[in-house]
């Protein structure tokens, strides 16, 4: 039997998150098929339902997975400090929210806004769930002596999530709803920062894991680490305007965002600068599965940051905005960076039989690589689709919207097929993780 300090509530969060990821992947593939078989599922599950089913399942995966990683990390940093009953209640509320929300999508009950299309009343349940998380984490942090940068990042992420999630619902008040442009400005301000807030949770976890794996404790306390953290926070707060460059909002919004987004060059420069060092480290640690995912996420940060820098220049944004380049950016970062780090963390925390990961398991290694390759094809295809539409929207538009879409048929096929293969790769990886969860928690409990 596991001893109490090994009992990790975080792992239960991770298991629920992984199940949501499987759902999200299936809904994503079903949704994408609409691009090549128009409305094939109209009568049972239309695109209008599948898109929110996909996006919300993915959001749940990310939020619950990140919470689980924070708990699992604290279980190592400050054992016995987590209030397990509170955490169980939190997980229970998450599951309840998921049931309500997915059920309402299946019944075509919407009412919310993009990414949160469910009836707004369920947002209260999510906010309550998050409050439980805040209470638990504040208690743990107070009793934790050392506060390396990842603890700051988790605290920031948790605090900003509730702030921006609430901001996302300001439209419930007539004052904020009266002016269309202002309303949209605030909505995308909130959405942009919200993504930043879960990134803080996930990047924090990545920091913690790197420290744990490389056994180098100095970096997470160094001033440089904190400078990078503050730069990230600065971007979270002020770099959301690139979503709305074409919105006729006050022009300072555009300037602030454009200027702030250029600080992202610093992140890019840093990746390039430290790449050699990381590569040497990678050669030593690449056999270790969690590390492998973290290293892959670095490459994806590089690719997505480069794309983001292009999209942040307003003149280029005119071409990419409202096209699948934006989707490439959204899915590229949520899969390549967030999912990659979370999976790495799952491998570290759930520890599927260690030898399976270090040397053997050709199967898992194969699917790790097929995940990377299919994701790359998927990402590039979205970018190509987006550029073609971008040229159309900035051209003379002699073709109608429908004609333009039909010229993209080939790309749509690659998109759907690569998405399908991506799903398969991920599902195999997830199942092996879930297997070890069930083994850790149920099979061996009897002794």
């Amino acid at each position, binding site marked *: 039997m596991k001893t109490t300090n090994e009992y990790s509530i975080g792992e239960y969060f991770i298991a629920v998150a992984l199940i949501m990821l499987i759902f999200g992947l299936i809904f994503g593939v079903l949704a994408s098929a609409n691009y090549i078989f128009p409305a094939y599922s109209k009568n049972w599950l239309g695109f209008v339902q599948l898109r929110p089913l996909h996006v919300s399942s993915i959001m749940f995966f990310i939020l619950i997975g990140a919470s689980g990683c924070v708990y699992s990390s604290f279980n190592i940093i400050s054992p016995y400090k987590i209030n397990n009953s509170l955490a169980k209640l939190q997980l229970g509320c998450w599951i309840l929210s998921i049931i309500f929300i997915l059920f309402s999508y299946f019944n075509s009950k919407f009412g919310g806004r993009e990414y949160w299309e469910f009836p707004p009343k369920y947002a209260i349940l999510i906010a309550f769930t998050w409050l439980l998380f805040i209470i638990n984490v504040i208690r743990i942090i107070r009793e934790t002596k050392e506060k390396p940068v990842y603890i700051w990042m988790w605290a920031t992420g948790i605090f900003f999530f509730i702030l921006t999630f609430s901001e996302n619902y300001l439209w419930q008040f007539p004052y904020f709803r009266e*002016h269309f442009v202002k309303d949209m400005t605030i909505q995308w301000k909130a959405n942009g920062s919200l993504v930043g807030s879960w990134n803080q949770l996930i990047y924090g976890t990545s920091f913690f894991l790197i420290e744990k794996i490389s056994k180098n404790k100095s970096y997470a306390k160094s001033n440089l680490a904190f400078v990078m953290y*503050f730069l990230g926070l600065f971007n979270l707060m002020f770099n959301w305007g690139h979503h709305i460059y074409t919105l006729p909002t006050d022009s300072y919004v555009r300037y602030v965002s454009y200027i702030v987004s250029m600080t992202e060059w610093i992140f890019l420069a840093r990746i390039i600068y430290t790449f050699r060092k990381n590569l040497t480290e990678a050669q030593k640690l690449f056999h270790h599965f969690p590390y492998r995912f973290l290293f892959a996420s670095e490459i994806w940060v590089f690719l997505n940051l480069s794309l983001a820098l292009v999209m942040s220049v307003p003149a280029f944004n005119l*071409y990419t905005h*409202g096209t699948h380049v934006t989707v490439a950016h959204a899915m590229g970062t949520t899969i390549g960076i967030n999912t990659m780090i979370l999976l790495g963390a799952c491998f570290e925390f759930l520890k599927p039989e260690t030898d399976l990961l270090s040397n053997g398991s050709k199967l898992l290694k194969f699917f790790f690589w097929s995940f990377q390759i299919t994701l790359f094809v998927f990402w590039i295809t979205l970018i190509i689709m987006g550029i073609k539409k971008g040229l159309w929207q900035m051209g003379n538009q002699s073709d109608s919207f429908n004609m333009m879409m039909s010229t993209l048929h080939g790309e749509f096929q690659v998109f759907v097929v690569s998405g399908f293969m991506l799903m398969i790769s991920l599902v195999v990886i997830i199942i092996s993780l879930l297997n070890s969860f069930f083994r850790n928690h149920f099979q061996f409990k009897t002794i």
Partner: protein
Amino acid sequence: MKHYWKIYFFTLLQIGFFIYSYILYSSNSFQYRNDYKSSSAQQGELVWQKYNCQSCHQMYGLGGYLGPDLTNVISVKGKNNNYILAIIKSGSIQMPSFNLSDVEKINLIEFLKSTDASGKADPRSFDSQFTGMISNK
């Protein structure tokens, strides 16, 4: 204590964030830009959300990608209220048919009028400058 600079810095950023938010929330300059929504248009926006039109359509380029941007659809030549209501009722190959009540129809049209009045979503209505910044033509 050596942690103090972190706390100062955090507080500073936080204050900046709240000031910026406050400016955006209270800004009146939007009001001169014809983006006011009548209560009927506000109801219309809720209709838009109730049927999740945003899963396929965009406003100012934001939304799903299967269908066209509808910010200014109401003022496109040949696409008047009747055309719009007809396509909503009948649907198309991709688009499902929606059975809106009479009130919902009126409100939705008001909403589309208000989005149209708020500005032009067409990215061609901007000029690019050598700095990479854009401005309205």
